[in-house]
């Protein structure tokens, strides 16, 4: 413990020297696309028009088509997410069954992973190993798996079969936690990969976003929406799971007909969206807030440095919109036209 503290302090201290404000000439940005937000535009399904946009922290302008400008070719069909390993960005292109590995600060191509993936969704690194969730054949509920990537040669080393619809990945305490949104169907588990072992934690239906904070894994479950209108919905929830014991320690449920869709964590607060409203609550709250902070249906959401970034994907056949709100005043501070179907925001 003591050594860990010292190490933490040493690392923290060294970052104080490497981060500085714009006036200090000693800081070298790591590439053109440093100090800003990366917007991932998934494109229209089947239209192969996924792209990357970038907005620097000064919020002056957006640059679209970053990947194709840099590499002279299109990104692919339905870019679902990006995962990072140091300076490498792994862009998971779901409908092209590939991962484009690029430098996160220049978006120059490093390599491509094309074998061993089948409808890949998200990528994360744990203990110098890459993990990619895959839905497999959409009509087969039993072939979903996690691909394990060797990060030295970018190959799929092995595959771990998991329950249907594995989606996001959170890494903590030497474990890999996978939320099962359910793919084209429904599911209600978090898979836990510890070494060779895979176990499952039961949560509310359709778990998606997760983050780790203070020894807990927070999971947002959307609940099941009964499209036929017969009222067979199930409740969504924000649940806290102890990352040592894998036990669900707290469940805050939503009203059955109110299905949440996004959740992010920033500076001690949880921001989530439900029913066309965005809410803010303390990470250690035990009940849901009654009043929202913002209105609107958004496709992607992220928070950083006191700002909330949200995207509107429109009709997936024309440019989407990125809006940035100040989390102190809740006022809109910037708005940009992005690529098609903006769905995720990441920060350099």
């Amino acid at each position, binding site marked *: 413990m003591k050594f860990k503290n010292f190490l933490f302090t040493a690392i923290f201290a060294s970052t104080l020297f490497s981060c500085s404000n714009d006036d200090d000439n000693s800081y070298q940005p790591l590439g053109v696309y440093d100090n800003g937000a990366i917007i991932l535009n998934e494109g229209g399904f*089947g*239209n*192969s*028009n996924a792209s990357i946009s970038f907005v620097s922290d000064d919020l002056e302008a957006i640059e679209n088509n970053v990947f194709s400008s840099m590499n002279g070719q*299109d*990104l*692919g*069909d339905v870019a679902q997410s990006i995962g990072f390993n140091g300076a490498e960005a792994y862009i998971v*292109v779901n*409908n*092209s*069954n590939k991962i484009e590995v690029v430098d996160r600060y220049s978006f120059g191509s490093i390599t491509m992973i094309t074998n061993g993936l089948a409808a890949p969704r998200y990528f994360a690194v744990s203990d110098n190993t890459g993990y990619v969730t895959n839905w497999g*054949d*959409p*009509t*087969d509920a039993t072939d979903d798996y996690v691909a394990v990537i060797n990060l030295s040669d970018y190959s799929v080393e092995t595959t771990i079969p998991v329950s249907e619809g594995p989606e996001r990945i959170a890494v903590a305490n030497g474990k890999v936690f996978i939320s099962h949104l359910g793919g084209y169907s429904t599911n209600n588990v978090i898979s836990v990969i510890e070494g060779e072992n895979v176990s499952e934690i039961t949560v509310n239906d359709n778990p998606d976003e997760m983050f780790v904070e203070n020894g807990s894994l927070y999971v947002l479950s959307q609940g099941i929406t009964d*499209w*036929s*209108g017969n009222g067979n919905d199930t409740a969504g929830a924000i649940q806290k799971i102890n990352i040592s014991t894998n036990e669900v320690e707290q469940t805050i449920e939503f009203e059955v007909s109110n*299905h949440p*869709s996004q959740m992010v964590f920033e500076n001690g607060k949880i921001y989530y969206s439900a*029913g*066309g409203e965005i809410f803010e609550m303390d990470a250690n709250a035990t009940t849901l807030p009654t009043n929202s902070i913002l209105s609107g*249906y958004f496709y992607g959401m992220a928070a950083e440095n006191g700002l909330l970034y949200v995207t509107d994907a429109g*009709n997936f*056949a*024309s*440019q989407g919109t990125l809006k940035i709100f100040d989390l102190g005043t809740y006022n809109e501070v910037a708005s940009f036209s992005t690529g*098609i179907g903006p769905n995720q925001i990441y920060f350099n």
Partner: protein
Amino acid sequence: MAQLDSINYLEEVLLSDMRLHEYSEGLKVEKLNDSVLEKNQMDLTTLLRFNSNIYLKENGPGMVASPSFRGTNASHTAVVWNGININSQLNGQTDFNTIYSNNYDNISVRSGGGSVLYGSGAIGGSVHLNNRFRFTDHFENKLRLVYGSFETKKAQLNTSFGNESLNISAGLNYVSSDNNYRYLGTNRFNDNGEFENLNLNLNAGTFFNQKNLLKFYHNTFFGDRNFSGGLHLNGRDRYEDRNSRSLLEWQYRQGQIRSTVRFAQVYEHYKYFQNASSETFSFGKTNKLLAQYDFKFDFSKTININAVAEYSSTKGDGSDISDVNRNVFAGVLLLNHQLTKKFGYGLQLRQEFANDYESPLLFAADVVYAFSEAYALKLNASKNFRMPTFNDIYWQPRGNPNLKPETSWQAEIGQEITVAEFDLNLNAFFIKSEDMIVWVPQGSLSSPQNINKFNGYGGEAGLGYYTEFGKNKISLNVDYAYTVSENAETKKQLMYVPFHKLTASTAYSYKNFTAFYQFLRNGNVFTTTDESRGLKGYDISNFGLSYNFSELIKKAELEVSLRLNNIYNEKYQITAGRPMPPRNFQIQLNINI
């Protein structure tokens, strides 16, 4: 001009859709004659791409193809089979790659609105597939074999038997291809694009006395296609079509009266396999039964009226719609009047009564003024519609039962000029459509709403030239269309509607030898609704040679042809991300006995 004479009477007997001729005087109707059909690929998509103003979009050769006629969308072109509208009841469209020209005796393209005559979807125009009877003594058989690049194989067998009062013809048509061409400039191949299609036709007609003629038409199509991917996506899915159409027609002709009773059945059934190697599929099918009574009365040689009453009942079922039923009664009144030798006009009205939508009153009017043999001026205006489809109304869970039909108004002016061996057509049109059905996100869900409005206008110019001298024959056809079609609110051009399309074809024949060359120039298109992205235009040329060995074998005709497609090996995409084939060939053997 609409005058009754013996030549017309003969046409009534031989042709299937008389209204195409009798009530389209003020419109542009272009017939693709036999020599055009012979020189072109048999799929309707490629045939019309090179020989009409219609813009055809397809996700790769043989894959799902849809038309855009005068800038309108895929469900605004009606495909009419022997007078019966066969657009799908599920999505309001016809996949042009499921129609093969060699099953029909003539194919015509009628530009402009035709909902009064042909019902829902005839807005930008209509494509007519017609079979023709021959009541003469004959027994003819035809065999056609084709082999081409990418393991393309086609086989066609037709037989026709007839005498003065009877004609029976049957046809069988098979097409298959591996479709595994290389994407130019890459080392990727078009994977999972194999297809295999089979068409069966049967047509029979008989006079049971001088005044009564009974005709039967039938076509069944079996389609089995894997859906290819593209540059950035792998194709994994598969699609099966089973479509069938039947028409029984009893025509009675006595003096000034022509009375026709028609019964038709139009059946469609698709199965979609998301994974080609799995047995799991989603499906949709509809079965339409139609009964029609058509009464035409010729007041004189210059005035006639036509009244039609039609009742149809369609049942639909599928993975996403269940047990749905649509019943429509339609009443149509048509009038044609040749006022003077040079001036004639037509007036048309249609009203439908349906159980699941409210139809507007539809009308059309057209005028022809023939200044001379060499110059005619045509004007027409119409109100047309497209009914909400089964998918729009009944799709579970977000179909909308309160949808109205899409409606459209248009006006057109056309000029036909003939000078020596040249024919020139000049047309300008304006189309305004509203209540267009779009699936709109409502919160996190989507539901179809009548909210879009479109405005379109454009001009078309067509030139035809034909001459013979000695044993030489030369023909030249050039067609150009300029189309603006925009969303009335955003003022942006629709996706996949090119501003410019130019087609040209020329053929030269000397005795038994023929050479032909076809050219297509398609302009840039936008691939997003806000004009932010697009696909570059392309030029494609095809070339062919054929030799007719008709003197070689007695009583038989043998013709061998070679066809080269995309001779300049142009790299092009019609749908973004899906490259089209490089240069490829086809060898064809035709035997007529």
